């Protein structure tokens, strides 16, 4: 439990640091003044913190939390520690939808685009689930069909890009590359709703996932409706990761690593893992975004790149620390 408190503390500190650092540093006192609506806050701080950094930090946290929980469910439903939400097709579906919308129809990246990308992600993952159904679903079949259909969708996206207007293609690529740069309160509201639905659903079935982890046969012999549970998990995973991708593009590695961090900290109970996974994922994306926008100032890197750069060594450290346990 101590390690969970440490994680909580790290997250709180990271949120403040992310609000303070940037092109124009803001003092801690000013941040608190802005957040508490105190009259000592100056106009510039209000503008920077409330209108630019706060939405971005919150968005980063929510995206990370969504992807992390989706990753936990993916690893559980696919019975594979290397699984991540991309395996069920959300990335490919969102990418194909985004490329079609931006390149083919030249729609500017607005709120509508997010919804279409979300729809693309959901459609793709449900298609994978439906195609892998053969009088019951199996983890391996879902993975194989997921990889196959995703490749097809990526090929489609690349095909459209190859013949598209270069400027539109570039816009699509930037949108896809994973960034929380253009975060708005409106986007946040949408993601919060999906995340709340996803978390509540995951919380409800946490105990069911614990039993399913013992294997299909064992779960069935205890009276569990295994196929129904898997379908629910699939939908939850698709909704959570699809909403995150729609909000921020493709952010790699979070869905893979956050559940492992949680497992190392609190063990295998999904009920305990759920909040810790969300926290770890949120922290990782906020930290990655901070690094992405400050390390090479004034250049801004995509946050998706930084999650991998930051996440991999941390993961290695955890593995190293646990090597003798």
């Amino acid at each position: 439990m101590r390690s969970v408190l440490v994680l909580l503390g790290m997250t709180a500190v990271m949120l403040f640091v992310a609000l303070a650092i940037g092109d124009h540093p803001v003092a801690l006192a000013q941040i608190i003044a802005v957040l508490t609506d105190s009259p000592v806050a100056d106009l510039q701080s209000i503008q920077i913190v409330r209108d630019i950094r706060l939405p971005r930090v919150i968005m980063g946290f929510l995206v990370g939390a969504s992807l992390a929980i989706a990753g936990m469910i993916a690893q559980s439903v696919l019975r594979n520690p290397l699984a991540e939400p991309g395996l069920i097709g959300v990335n490919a579906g969102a990418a194909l939808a985004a490329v079609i919308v931006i390149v083919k129809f030249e729609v500017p990246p607005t709120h509508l685009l997010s919804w279409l990308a979300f729809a693309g992600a959901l459609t793709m993952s449900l298609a994978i689930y439906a195609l892998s159904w053969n009088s019951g679903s199996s983890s391996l079949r879902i993975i194989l069909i997921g990889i196959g259909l995703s490749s097809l969708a990526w090929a489609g996206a690349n095909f459209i890009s190859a013949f598209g207007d270069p400027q539109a293609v570039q816009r699509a690529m930037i949108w896809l590359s994973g960034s929380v740069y253009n975060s708005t309160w409106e986007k946040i509201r949408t993601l919060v709703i999906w995340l709340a639905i996803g978390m509540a659903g995951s919380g409800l079935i946490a105990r069911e996932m614990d039993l399913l982890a013992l294997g299909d046969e064992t779960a069935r012999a205890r009276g569990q409706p295994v196929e129904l549970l898997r379908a629910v998990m699939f939908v939850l995973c698709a909704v959570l990761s699809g909403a995150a991708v729609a909000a921020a593009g493709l952010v790699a590695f979070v869905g893979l690593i956050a559940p492992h961090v949680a497992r190392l900290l609190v063990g295998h109970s999904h009920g305990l893992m759920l909040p810790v996974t969300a926290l770890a994922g949120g922290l990782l994306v906020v930290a990655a975004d901070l690094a992405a926008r400050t390390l090479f100032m004034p250049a801004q890197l995509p946050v998706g790149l930084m999650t991998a750069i930051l996440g991999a060594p941390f993961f290695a450290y955890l593995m190293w620390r646990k090597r003798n346990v």
Partner: protein
Amino acid sequence: MSDQSALPILETRAASIGYGARLILRDLDFSIPEASFTVLLGPNGCGKSTLLRALAGLIRPQQGTVLINGRSISTFPRKELAQRIGLLSQNQSAPEGMRVRDLVRQGRYPYRTLFGRWTKEDDEACEEALAVTDTAHLAGEKFDTLSGGQRQRAWIAMTLAQRTSVLLLDEPTTFLDLSHQIDTLRLARKLVRERGVTVVAVLHDLNQAARYADNLVLLKHGAIISEGPPADVLTPETVKRVFDVDVTILIEPQTKAPICVPVEDADL
């Protein structure tokens, strides 16, 4: 020792069972008396595990029915069936790092509802299962630190925590050393004698089966060749027919249990 007049608790009636187009068991009529220890024996692929899965309601017969206390098991909601019939399958695997107590607690699943809390009764069932299987001292241990025998006993404890009147065990003694094999068989017999549980197990060792079971069922190619008390079932003819091995049957003087000894040519 066996009480043949006991009512059947589990029955199959004209049951044909298989996977898709492939039938494993054909037109099977057989019954298991209540509060008895029945062992299914037969060569690999004869349909023992399939029969066990059908008795647990995990595969539905393509024809015929499986009944528990005279009622078709397909009419039970899943959880209610799991309150009556417990199955321990072969080749179990628990997630790394899971603790024994958490595994055993999963056995209470059939009694829990979506929002239901963990009850005192759940606790008692788990503690009892741990005590009976001699795993109470391992409750806090992580699964991957246990020996094969300890793991198997933890799985049995999980199945016992389910508190079912029927216990189906698929090769429960595989991977155990002799002393734990005997412990497991004694435990099965104790559950039958002291609590009136009906145990059906798949075993490979004919002599252990004959020593501990009330009834033996010999299966070959999805059909029952012989069933009844061990002394009646294990004969040189049936063993030859089912396993294609020539044996001599000796009688163990103390319990009168039959013992199969393979016949070898003197010059080998």
